[in-house]
């Protein structure tokens, strides 16, 4: 089991994150909201809020994308960093933010009913319609 600290940042470096412990296996989300915000589809890992430290949080803009969810991005460079349910004790972090090695691997595809028409999912991982 990979333990220790996982570090990451947005593109411009204004927002820096550190996660204590191993990263849970990420999901790839093909919903229309994640497709629009990421530009393709979004891969993220769920982290207990208590295990996450954010530096430069004042640079994060939060966008309320639905009644119970906020999405966070860097105000300076636009990096899509966070998906956060308003209730609950976890936050999803964009896998692109993390330094290598991540010590984890994509687990499944979700919301494939909303996937784009210009690509195929060919990696053999489980796919959920929602």
């Amino acid at each position, binding site marked *: 089991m990979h333990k220790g600290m996982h570090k990451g940042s947005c*593109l411009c470096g204004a927002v820096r994150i550190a996660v204590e412990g191993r990263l849970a296996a990420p999901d790839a989300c093909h919903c229309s909201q994640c497709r629009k915000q990421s530009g393709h*589809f979004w891969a993220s890992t769920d982290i207990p809020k208590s295990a996450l430290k954010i530096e430069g949080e004042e640079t994060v*803009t939060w966008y309320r994308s639905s009644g119970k969810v906020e*999405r966070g991005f*860097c105000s300076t460079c*636009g990096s899509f960093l966070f998906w956060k349910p308003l209730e609950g004790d976890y936050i999803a972090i964009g896998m692109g933010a993390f330094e290598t090695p991540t010590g984890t691997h994509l687990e499944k595809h979700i919301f494939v009913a909303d996937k784009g028409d*210009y*690509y195929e999912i060919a990696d053999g991982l489980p796919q959920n319609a929602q």
Partner: protein
Amino acid sequence: MHKGSCLCGGVRIEATGDLVPPDACHCSWCRKQSGHFWVSTYIPQDSMTIAGEERVRWYRSSEEGARGFCSTCGSFLFWNPVEGDHIAISMGVFETPTQTQLARHLYVADQGDYYEIADGLPQRAQ
């Protein structure tokens, strides 16, 4: 005509003509900004119109160009090279059907370690 928008709808685009087959870029910059990797199509700038352009914030990520995103919802929309008359637009913004297909993967030397590319399309290290 292909139409699209950011997540909040504050920025709307229209592109005339067919969309050229997009590239998937796995460079560390595109990975950080998109959250995974980025897929975009190149459009001649004179074939695109943008409504709500005042909401687009530009980040000059390198000498070569700037990246544009919606300042309200953060949607990653554009990569605008300094040279040339084309702009790259995220495929995620477009309404279906896009009538195009991913052509290849770029900068796979910088690919993340948590996923595989298994679609059989051409891959370039840079």
